[in-house]
């Protein structure tokens, strides 16, 4: 009896499900999907230019930069952890790559270095968290400054541009293929793989187990610390990947690029419906969450909303989206 009561106390605890098919049919994300479609129509019907390929491309690309990190954050949140330092990693990756290219390194080699650097910074987060025995959110509150500071130091506080735009890296990774930016394809592929990893592999199950009951996971001898460190490193990799994709498209990097992206990533994850209580997570939801955030920005431009009002509107739409999603879920479970 008491279990039922517990689940009543945490109405969103059931978020996420075991297999892609089951999930699509059970439609945990149905509320979100509806909200998304609604927003698209709300913008697109009065402003059909919204459906221009160029507009769709830009919306999806912008979404991708956030979503690809959000996918990793889903794993962290499923472990009841949050990484605030991703913006620093994102910035360092893009900047170090840009500087290497300026220094004459081949972009393909530079991208490897940048991804490795991101992974290492993620690893630093994880190791500090585990060794000091403090939650990642606390450690990363400090490393956010460290990494951003690092970015200022390596860049000397200056923007870098002048990338060899005709080089195969920028053509392939920064370009469009089959009608969509490569960035978007990479993000979709990453999302599918990570959905599978979260729900179908031992590592994914361990991540969710740790989030569900850390004490039990430790008791069973799951290598909790190792899983944590592995995950932070892999989130570092994803943040770097996003940074690198940003550079591939913009062909320039700035010392403050990405400042504040962590809040949008977290917003994508939680709007997406991943419960902060841990033990579960939804990659599809995170993608929808990121899409909704980008759509709000688009909507504000298409509707020509005054800059003084744009933040207010953004906030209201976010609150409404969260509210509708939760109400839809509640209706479904009751």
């Amino acid at each position, binding site marked *: 009896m008491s279990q039922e009561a517990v689940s009543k106390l945490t109405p969103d605890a059931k978020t996420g499900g075991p297999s892609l098919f089951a999930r699509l049919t059970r439609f945990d994300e149905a509320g979100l999907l509806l909200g998304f479609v609604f927003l698209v129509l709300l913008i697109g019907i009065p402003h059909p*230019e919204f459906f221009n390929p160029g507009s769709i491309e830009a919306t999806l690309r*912008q979404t991708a930069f956030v979503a690809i990190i959000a996918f990793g954050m889903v794993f962290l949140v499923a472990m009841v952890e949050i990484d605030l330092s991703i913006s620093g990693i994102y910035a360092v990756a893009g900047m170090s790559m840009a500087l290497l290219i300026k220094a004459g390194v081949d972009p393909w080699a530079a991208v490897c270095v940048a991804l490795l650097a991101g992974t290492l910074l993620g690893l630093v987060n994880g190791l500090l968290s585990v060794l000091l025995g403090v939650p990642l959110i606390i450690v990363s509150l400090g490393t956010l400054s460290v990494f951003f500071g690092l970015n200022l130091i390596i860049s000397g506080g200056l923007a870098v541009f002048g990338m060899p735009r005709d080089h195969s890296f920028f053509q392939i990774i920064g370009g469009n293929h089959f009608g969509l930016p490569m960035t978007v394809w990479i993000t979709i592929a990453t999302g599918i793989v990570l959905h599978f990893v979260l729900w179908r592999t031992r590592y994914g199950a361990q991540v969710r187990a740790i989030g569900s009951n850390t004490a039990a996971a430790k008791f069973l001898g799951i290598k909790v610390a190792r899983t944590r460190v592995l995950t932070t490193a892999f989130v570092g990799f994803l943040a770097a990947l996003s940074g690198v994709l940003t550079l591939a498209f*913009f062909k320039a990097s700035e010392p403050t690029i990405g400042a504040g992206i962590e809040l949008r990533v977290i917003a994508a994850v939680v709007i997406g419906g991943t419960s902060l209580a841990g033990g579960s997570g939804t990659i599809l939801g995170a993608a929808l969450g990121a899409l909704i955030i980008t759509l709000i920005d688009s909507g504000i431009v298409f509707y020509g909303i005054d800059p003084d009002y744009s933040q207010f509107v953004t906030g209201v739409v976010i609150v409404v989206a969260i509210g509708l999603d939760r109400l839809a879920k509640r209706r479904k479970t009751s």
Partner: protein
Amino acid sequence: QDKVTISLIQILTVQEWASEVEAGARAAVADIGEDKITLRVQGPAGFELAKQAQVTLSEVERGTDAIILSNVAPGAMIEPAAILAERGVPITWIVSAPPNEVENAFFVGSDPYAVGEAGANLIVDALEEKHGKPASELSGEIVQGLCVPGLPVLTRRMHAVEAAVSEKIPNATFLPPFDSKLDLTQSYASWNQAIQKYPDALFYTDPCEDANKNIQKIRVDDGIDVPQVYYDNPEIARQAVLDGEVTGLVSSNRFTEGYVAVWATAKALMDEEQPFPTGWLHVPYKVVDQENIGAYIAAWDDNGAGLREFYDPEITTTRALPLTGLPPTSDYNGGAQ
């Protein structure tokens, strides 16, 4: 004569114009003599107003003879200025003038309204050339973005563009500004949507640096041939002028601002007879276009070794101005207060 210490308190130090202010300030120190002035530069990397205030107060405690204050948001420095006045530490304001209630303020800077007008002139000329007819016969929509509401240095620039262009192109329709965001990628997404919505606009304008980078990128990527003017002069903008991808840039001349601020402050400190100056010491803006872009880019080589030389005309002119009888700083704020 004793060596004087001057502290330059910046904000947004990561933006390139802030490094230019610093470079100008250091050039002034080199000209006056390292043995005569110690220059200290401090300030938050981001847009942190309270931190800038605290840094200012701490810097005074650390011991300084005068503060040069990079004023971006008009309200945040009023009280620190009052405290400094009480402590007898003079302030030289740069970037934007303080609100009128700060009495006896000394401001060294360019006029954002004039900057905007200069930009508008470049654009109108380019439009006339492009369409092959006089401005008065042109018509169309003009799309404008704004990244942070409420900063006079940006809004006055924006208002000037609108006023100047409207005067010359009476049939132009200025759309109300939209939120073009500070972050490079978000700004791109917003500007992209704006251009999708108004692909046939007469031109696109934004007083912000990242916004202009993105307008340029979208124009180049999509082959949109309309004039564009930068109001900042980061390397990417300089290159764009050189490559003919944008019409030109109107620089607020932050280098000269930094230079003259140090120079005037030092002079005032060293001349004990005269009271510390008050009023607005005008720094002329600088238009960079096809004519002088080569020289400008060359000046930046070698960590900006040639900048002092490049800006010499403005520096010399401004330096020659008397520090007395300056126009009041309230001129800067126009009718806004």
